[in-house]
Every structure is written in C-alpha cells, then in structure tokens.
C-alpha cells in the first residue's frame, strides 16, 4: 500500500515538474526544422555561396509565412478547444466537432465563390459571421439543457453544414474549385504574406485576450453548483468563452480551412503534462496547438515529397492514433 502511494506520487511529480514545459523547448527546433525542410533540399544549398541568396528568399518569402501561419492557426484552434472543453466540462468539445469551424467554412466558401475578387483580408470576417451564427443557433437550441446536448446537437449541425458546403461546391463551377477544395481539407499551401498579416493581426488581439480569459476560468473546473457558489459570473464567462472560441476558430478557418483534431488534441496533451487549472493550461495549449499544426504541415510536405499532402489530412492520419493512445493511457492510469 505504502509503495503504491509512493509510486503514484512520484508519477505525479514527474507529470508536474520533471518534464517542465516541453512545449517551450520543442518550439524552436520544430520551427527550425519546418523552415529548413521542404520540397527543395535547403541545407546543402544554403552552404553553397552561389545559391544562398535564392534559398534565403525561399525561406523568408515562402516558408516563413507558411510556418508562422501554421503556428498561429494551431495555437488558435488549441485555445478554442480548451475554452469549449472547459465551458462544457466535457473533453469531447472541439470547434471542429460542434460545427463552429464548419459554420465559418461555409461562410468563407460562400465568400470565395460569390465574390472571387475578395481580398483575403476580409475572409476572417466572413468566418466570424458564419461561426457566430452557427454557435448562436446551437446556443438557442440547447438552452436550458445539459452541456452534452450542446455537443450532440453540434455534431449534427457540423454534418449539416458540411453537406451545405458540398452543395455549394457542386453548384458552383469555377476554376477556383481545386484551390477551394485544397483549402477546405486544411492546408497551409496558400499561406503568403497577406494571409500571414491578416492572421497575425487577429491573433495579436485574440491570443492574449483568450489567455486572460483563461485566468478567470478556475471555478469552471468544478461542478456547476460549486462554481456558481464561488461567485463566478458564469453567465458572462460562458458567453465570453463561446464568443472567443467562435472567433478563434473562424480566424483559423479563414487562414487554413477546416483543420481538425488540433482543438481536441492540444488540450488533452496539455492536461497530461501540466496541472489541470485553465489558468495554467492557457500557455501550454497555445504551444502544443502550434507544435501540432507545424509538425502536420512539415510531414505533409516532406513525407511523400514532391507530393504535397494537406496538413489537415496529416493531422487526421497521425493525430487520430495519437489521440486514441492518449485516451488508452489515461484509462490505464485511472484503472491502476
């Protein structure tokens, strides 16, 4: 008995302290790897004087925007997932699962197809419009019911919206269809300076704001009665969380399409490695979200090079097994 307690304590301490902030020491090498790797072999050319200028341009003009957009999108989606999971007190919630991302995607696709000359600067606004509308609908429908009802209705809404996107794509016959399809699968291939600037502008406001919001979410860890009795203004906090999750999801969708699983995976990884308070999960979730998106993009463009796989597909192919392993590990620990 004494030994058992001892070993669980050691395991906890390892969880909490020994692996201190892995996201911090993983970010720089992964970012470097993403910048150097790709369809062109960079490192050898970088050492060669005659090609150095060209390669520096490739890295700074093509890859840097792409990698930064991936990091921002991943961080946004991770944070949106954390907010929704904390709010619904359910680890299943994710902007991609409850239809927030699909709502944003529908509006963005409509914008792209109806107004082909639209500047990418405006896409996040379309996305916000779409995601807030779908969330408002969901909120009205599930008002007064348990949190799981919101998730279940969200799953339905998500399918419905995906179908509507499909209809829209079939009805429209433009040469932009292929590009829209790639974007929809969740890809950073279209990321350029314009996308980067737009995403960066929104993220500079949203990510710090959402981190601040996390600082006030502590009571939501507890059951609804306890959190209300601690004086948390749960109504206001819930509204802010939903709104923030919608806007974060929409900005991510406008930049890189419907990228699944980051919002689900990043909070789960963070919870395994860090204390469970939302105020302490904010930064790790941003970090793991960014790492996941950058790694997915890196693998997508280098695994079968010169074929470019969208990051969204890579995330599903690699993220799903990782997610299942994580769940099994969690079950094993709880069962032991």
């Amino acid at each position: 008995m004494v030994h058992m307690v001892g070993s669980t304590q050691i395991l906890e301490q390892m969880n909490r302290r020994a692996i201190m902030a892995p996201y911090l020491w993983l970010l720089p090498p992964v970012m470097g790897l993403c910048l150097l790797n790709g369809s062109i072999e960079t490192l050898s050319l970088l050492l060669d004087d005659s090609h150095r200028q060209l390669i520096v341009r490739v890295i700074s003009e093509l890859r840097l925007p792409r990698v930064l957009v991936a990091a921002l999108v991943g961080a946004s989606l991770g944070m949106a997932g954390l907010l929704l999971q904390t709010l619904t007190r359910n680890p299943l919630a994710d902007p991609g699962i409850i239809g927030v991302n699909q709502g944003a995607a529908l509006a963005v696709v409509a914008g792209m197809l109806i107004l082909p000359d639209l500047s990418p600067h405006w896409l996040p606004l379309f996305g916000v419009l779409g995601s807030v509308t779908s969330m408002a609908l969901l909120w009205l429908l599930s008002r007064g019911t348990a949190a799981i009802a919101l998730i279940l209705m969200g799953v339905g809404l998500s399918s419905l919206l995906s179908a509507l996107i499909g209809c829209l794509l079939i009805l429209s016959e433009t040469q932009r269809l292929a590009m829209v399809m790639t974007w929809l699968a969740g890809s950073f291939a279209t990321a350029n300076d314009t996308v980067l600037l737009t995403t960066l502008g929104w993220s500079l406001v949203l990510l710090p704001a959402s981190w601040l919001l996390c600082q006030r979410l502590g009571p939501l860890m507890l059951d609804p009665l306890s959190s209300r009795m601690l004086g948390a203004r749960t109504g206001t906090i819930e509204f802010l969380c939903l709104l923030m999750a919608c806007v974060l999801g929409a900005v991510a969708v406008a930049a890189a399409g419907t990228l699944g699983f980051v919002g689900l995976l990043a909070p789960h990884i963070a919870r395994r490695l860090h204390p469970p308070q939302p105020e302490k999960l904010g930064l790790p979730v941003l970090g793991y979200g960014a790492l996941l998106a950058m790694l997915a993009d890196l693998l997508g463009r280098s695994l079968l090079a010169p074929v470019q796989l969208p990051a969204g597909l890579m995330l599903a192919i690699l993220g799903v097994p990782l997610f299942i392993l994580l769940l099994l590990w969690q079950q094993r620990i709880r069962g032991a």
Partner: protein
Amino acid sequence: MNKHAIRATNLRVGYRGTLLIDEGRLEFPAGHISVLLGANGSGKSTLLKALAGLHPLQGGQVWIGDENLAATPARRLAQRLAFLPQHPNAPETLTVTELVMLGRYPYRRPFLPPSREDRAAVEEALSQTDLHDLSERSLGTLSGGQRQRAWLAMVLAQQSDILMLDEPTSYLDLSHQYDLLNLIWQLNREQGKTLVLVLHDLNLAFEFADHLIYMKGGRICAQGSPAATANPELIEEIFGLHCEIRPHPQAFCPLLIPLAGQRNRRQVAMPAPPPVLCSDKCD
C-alpha cells in the same frame, strides 16, 4: 449581530409549474447548527439551493443577515455564504491545495497571484481539516473521507459566516461520518459559524443539531430543538417509520430505535443460529 443568519418570507419555490415549497416564514438562528430532515423528495435540497440563490424563486424573499439575496452580487454572496453541493466534482489530477485555493476565488483580484491573506486562509483551512500531510496529493488518490474533508476545506477557505452542506456525510462510513460532524461541530462552537445541513441519519441529527426542521412534501411540518421535537408520532408522520425514542445512554440527546425491521422481531421468537467462527480463515 443579527439574531437570524438567514430569513425567508413567503418563500415559493418550484420546478416548471409544480410548486415544491410554499412557506410563510422560515428562520435559521445565527451561530447554530440547523439540520433539514425529511424523506427523499421532500424538498430539503431544493429548499437549501433556494436559500443559497441557486434556485430561482417564484415568490418571496430571502435575507442573508440584513442583505436581500436577490440584490446581493455573486461575489459578495460567496464571501458571506459557502455551499457544498451533494455531488461536488473536480478534476482528479487537481491537488488538495489547488482545490482549496479555489475557495479564495471570491476574494482574488483578477490576473494576480494569490495574496498573503489568500495563502493564510488556505493554510488555516488545511489545518482545520487536518489535511497538511495530504496537501500535495491529487484528489484521485484520496479516499472518500479524505476527499470530503478536502471539499470542506475548500468551503472553509471562503471564510464565510454561513456554511450550507447538502448531505455532507453520504458515502462515508459511520466513523468518518462522526469525524466530519465532529469537525463541523467544532467549527460552529469555536468560530460561531452558522451551519445549515441536510442529513439523512436521524440519530446524527439529534446528536449534533441545535435546531431541526422537518419537511414533508415541500412543507415544513415541525421545527425546534432535538429534545423538543423527537417523538415517535412525528417521525412516523414524516418518514413513515415506526420507531421508539429513548434518551441516549451517553450523550444528552434523544436516540431513535427503528422498529420497522421484521427480521429482528422474528429472531426474538426463534433461537438464534450458532455463530460461525472463522478464526481459521482470518488469522
């Protein structure tokens, strides 16, 4: 100091159309332990939630001290009144200290680390509940009794004058039920906190309560001290339980002896089976 910690007038509480509680006047004396008693579904928990502002009122008013509950901001209310629900829930990986620190939420300034007062209140709550040795353990590794003490510590860290506990002893074995109630009694006697509890065990209620409130079908049938209210007719009326009340041989309180068990009565007439000795098995 106000004589009544909590007062309710013309209280009407219900769920969609059905009125559960309709009471003209209800008072909880300050500095006393009040216990709500009644069968399952008699409205004890609903009444407690309504008094804590967790259940919308269909009519009437609740006064916490001299403040109207409806006009009290949530933060201010949390500093005056702490509530422990029947099924509290927190992440299993949360440590005891982290849980207790959440009790400081109504006092914490946003976006700043815990103040010296916050840390002192957490320390005090941990020592009152004797949890210092377990303070860094996560909730998932605690036993039921330890976990309940951790929740009590969280509520104590709120440093409120009034504590409301909804069935704090359910899921605890008898000796842990006594540990918890002794602790609650001590808090009441040493710090003058007003306590309102829901309990199911009548004998525990007789032993620890100053003031009993008997409920049936959403109505309050009787109120008063244990000695004044414990009589077999009332218990039969409220719980439908045939029983006998005797003076407790040790404590100065009534003792209830249920007479509903058919098995024991039959055994009086029949010779008892010989005891099975298992000394060879449990050596």
